[in-house]
């Protein structure tokens, strides 16, 4: 696990449409530098934008910010939430580990593209860890938001390889969302079509957690 923080070996070994993540990272570098319209974003994302000129790096940094938030959320939850069943705690740890791997992979990809990974924001989840119910409710919100965020950002991605990587992450977010929803006795897939969200909408949604 520790080594993945440096080189994201998981990404290097997964086939993406007949190629490997190594190739993906290299080829994605060539696609970097394409620019998009200005994104209104929180300061750390704006900073990354200014440095890298937009494009896939911005989208990856946006995703990275979300993953920092999710990883930290589950890390704190595992330490603080009382009253989770054994299975629920096991799931929380699994989700924490998944999100940490997403963080590592996204940060490594941003670097490979020549960008500067967004810094981890300072986070405040308020009363989310007060009990099982509030934890699960917030987890539900975050996971569904994650799905909407990736789905909204997907079509803005220039590099087919970066798109494949984002797709491989969003599918996991969707699976997380479904399971948290099942635990909450909510429909795992409430809509026939998951709604995409703009970066602005997602940033507004996560703003309460950024302190």
């Amino acid at each position, binding site marked *: 696990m520790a080594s993945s923080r440096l080189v994201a070996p998981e990404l290097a070994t997964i086939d993406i449409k007949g190629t490997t993540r190594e190739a993906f990272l290299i080829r994605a570098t060539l696609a970097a530098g394409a620019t998009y319209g200005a994104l209104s974003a929180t300061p750390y994302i704006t900073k990354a934008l200014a440095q890298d000129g937009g494009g896939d790096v911005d989208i990856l940094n946006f995703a990275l910010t979300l993953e920092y938030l999710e990883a930290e959320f589950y890390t704190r939850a595992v330490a603080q939430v009382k009253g989770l069943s054994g299975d629920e705690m096991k799931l929380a740890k699994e989700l924490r580990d998944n999100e940490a791997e997403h963080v590592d992979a996204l940060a490594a990809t941003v670097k490979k593209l020549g960008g500067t990974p967004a810094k981890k924001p300072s986070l405040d989840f308020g009363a989310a860890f007060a009990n099982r119910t509030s934890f699960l409710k917030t987890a539900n919100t975050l996971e569904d938001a994650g799905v909407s965020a990736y789905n909204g950002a997907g079509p803005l991605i220039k590099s087919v390889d970066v798109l494949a990587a984002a797709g491989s992450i969003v599918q996991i977010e969707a699976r997380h969302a479904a399971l948290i929803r099942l635990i909450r006795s909510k429909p*795992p897939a409430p809509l026939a079509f998951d709604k995409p969200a703009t970066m602005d909408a997602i940033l507004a949604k996560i703003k309460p957690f950024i302190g």
Partner: protein
Amino acid sequence: MTDSALRELADDPSSRKRFFKMMGGAGAVSAFGVLLAACGDDDKKDTASTPAAADDDANDAKKDDGATGDIAVLNFALTLEFLEAEFYAKVIDSGIVKDKKVAAIATKFGETEQEHVDALKATIKKLGGKPVSAPKTKFEETIDKGLMTVLETAADVENLGAAAYLGAAGRIKNKDVLAAALSIHSVEARHAAALNQLLDRGFGGKGGLKGTLPDGAFAKGMDEAAVLAAVKPFLA
């Protein structure tokens, strides 16, 4: 079988009510809107079937290629959705699912797959393409093997669907069609996770169709040829 989570879900009348409301109400309309908005570019309709016609205009030619390719991807997706919708419909009709709550899940998932079918067909037509016909299936053989096999097959097919959309996403040219495909991809993933959980496979799953399950924190896409090979046993 660990169906407690699904049992709880099905037991929640308020969320079920909301679900059906969304399916039959504004949610369904806006979902179609997503797909149909993909096709606002009317000039594709005529040129899609004759891509060579605009060869002298580089931009138009590029657009034509995109539409033709996108129609092919959409028809591939449509074939899978036909299979999924048909499978759930046959399972429900067979009466093999005695547990009312599990039956409710199968019904819901099946209705969602039918919505995907309808939306994909409409989108293909809007792009000037011809939707493929529903394939002839032999799901009866699966159903005859009993409930466990039915649920395993449902999980396998949903995982396969998620892998198929992930594998195909990069081939889609039209950004709106891509947005629509992504909005379906994550729903297939939700279905897959719920069914994996029902079977106590963990949300990522284990067993199942080789190559369709996530590798830890990262899901894997599957290319069209492999997906079609995987569904072959279900085709008559």
